[in-house]
């Protein structure tokens, strides 16, 4: 059975296009806004949407996403309510949705319960930033039992060659390559290093490679798109929400930003 996420990468590969994957913190500023924004970003050219699950202590995130998590928690967002939102979105769109959740939010619900509810709601993939492959067994056996979601693992510039092989083989849907040694929202410094590492990952896997962390502008998105199969833009998207939070046309403004990323990525396609 092909999952929406895998189908999207196959379709893109066939047409030699690169995936644009914007990140939204679910519930920032409210889950209703998230619903509107997902549809708007799809119209603007997003191929896949990553939905952050807010956590009180997000150790892999820089200040932009930390503050977004605080806003989302203040608006009463929980993992259960996010899954409701995903289910509602599924009546209106088939865009692949990936959740990014710290382990404790999943553990609190129970690995098995989470996987079955995520599949039922229509979530396609899951990224757990504080779960290396060594700790993945409870979650991956739950996901295997209930038939989803796909577990996407991360590789970093510090990953050794044996870890590259280990992680690339375990990752489903795509490999998430972290472009820099640091946290989300940091400055992307060394594109040459990204190119080298993506090439090394390609040698050990056939699944697509998406690159995230530190990609803030259409120019950077275009450069990364030339290297990888997908471009993930997180903090820069979240920053737009803050900038336009009092603007009634916030969704359209966000759409314009994502469209500018799309245009830039297509220019290298």
């Amino acid at each position, binding site marked *: 059975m092909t999952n929406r996420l895998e189908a999207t990468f196959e379709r893109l590969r066939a047409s030699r296009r690169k995936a644009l994957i914007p990140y939204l913190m679910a519930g920032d500023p409210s889950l209703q806004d998230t619903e509107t924004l997902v549809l708007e970003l799809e119209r603007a050219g997003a191929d896949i949407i990553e939905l952050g699950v807010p956590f009180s202590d997000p150790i892999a995130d820089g200040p932009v996403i930390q503050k977004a998590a605080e806003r989302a928690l203040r608006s009463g967002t929980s993992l259960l309510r996010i899954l409701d939102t995903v289910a509602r979105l599924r009546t209106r769109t088939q865009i692949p949705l990936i959740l990014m959740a710290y382990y404790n939010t999943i553990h*609190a619900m129970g690995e098995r319960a989470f996987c079955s509810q995520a599949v039922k709601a229509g979530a396609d993939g899951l990224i757990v930033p504080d779960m290396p492959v060594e700790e993945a067994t409870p979650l991956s056996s739950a996901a295997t039992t209930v038939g989803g979601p796909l577990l996407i693992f991360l590789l970093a510039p510090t990953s050794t060659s044996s870890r590259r092989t280990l992680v690339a083989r375990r990752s489903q849907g795509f490999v998430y390559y972290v472009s820099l040694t640091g946290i989300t929202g940091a400055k992307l410094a060394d594109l040459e290093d990204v190119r080298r590492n993506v090439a090394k990952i390609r040698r050990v896997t056939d699944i697509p490679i998406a690159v995230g962390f530190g990609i803030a502008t259409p120019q950077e998105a275009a450069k990364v798109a030339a290297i990888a199969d997908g471009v993930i833009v997180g903090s820069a998207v979240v920053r737009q929400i803050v900038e336009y939070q009092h603007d009634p046309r916030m969704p359209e403004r966000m759409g314009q930003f994502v469209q500018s990323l799309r245009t830039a990525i297509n220019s290298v396609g």
Partner: protein
Amino acid sequence: MPQLPDKQGRFGKFGGRFVPETLMPALLELEQAYLETRHDRRFQAELSYYLTHYAGRPTPLYLAERLTRTLGGAKIYLKREDLCHTGAHKINNTIGQALLARRMKKPRVIAETGAGQHGVAVATVAAMFGLACEVYMGTEDMQRQALNVFRMRLLGSTVTGVDAGSRTLKDAISEAMRDWTTNVRTTHYILGSVLGAHPYPMMIRDFQSVIGREVRRQALSAEGRLPDYLVACVGGGSNSIGLFHAFLKDAKVQMIGVEAGGLGVESGKHAARFAGGHPGVLHGTMTYLLQDDDGQINLTHSVSAGLDYAAVGPEHSFYHDAKRIQYTSATDEEALAAFDLLSREEGIMPALESAHAVAEVMKLAPRLKKQQVIIINLSGRGDKDVQQVARIKGVTL
């Protein structure tokens, strides 16, 4: 009982390594480097040299005669970790980790601190070994512990305020982990308690278990037998596991860990993880946590900043579930009463953290027979808390 933790850093179902991939290679490198030092005579000799000549070990086991008489029950001894250099057991761990940082050729160390005791102990060894040092501290804690902030700066460290979340220890650890993620190639993170991802809980326990090894020898020499009870406060749990570890196989030695009861467990304003928490993952480890139904970490409260944290070390969670160690709590009020009692009866001002252990003994000792022996780990001295105690008593200095 099997050797704990296992190769994956597990104490039963607790522990592990729940960190971003970026940090995994560093944790594996640290584990490797640490395991090598266990059999490296030169490293062990050096560690022992600094513990003796710099930290002031062994610390005395002192018979608290007046306290024993006043409470009118078991014989009470104090393990005087308060007499260590910098005033607490924290230095046992920071010397060990600074030596490791040097061995791994990391020129920079970072740390988190709540009250400032661990931060001062890190700043101290960084000065002595010539390492660059940056300490993360919640801005709320920086205000409450301005003296320790100044102390760390005098020692040549940078103190960076963390203005996120609750602006306390929890947020300082998160920020230190983010720094480590960013600077992992040049930096060693000196974590202060038996928390975090493997190998930290194991390594810090080992560095602190010098306390229990000394106590064992000292008790045998003073009493000709092992003690009946060991009592220690439990924040992350490094002083307590340091005392308990050498006795875990002695079934007759009972152990009590005392958590921060704050305003009372029923008030919700406390840091008693075993009374009010359940297992989950925070800052790299699976352990008992104070959290809500959605897995969001709760805010904690204690008069003692060193105990004011939502998670407990994973090894404690294991011994809690195995019922080998008993965990209880003392409220702010009880700890303050113990602070007064020990000051007046023995002329020893305990850290507010350690006062929680004394508070438990105030309840326990009178119920025991005169020939029974209790050992309290007096993990730190109370000088740092004098201003706060004055504030609570409504005294203007």
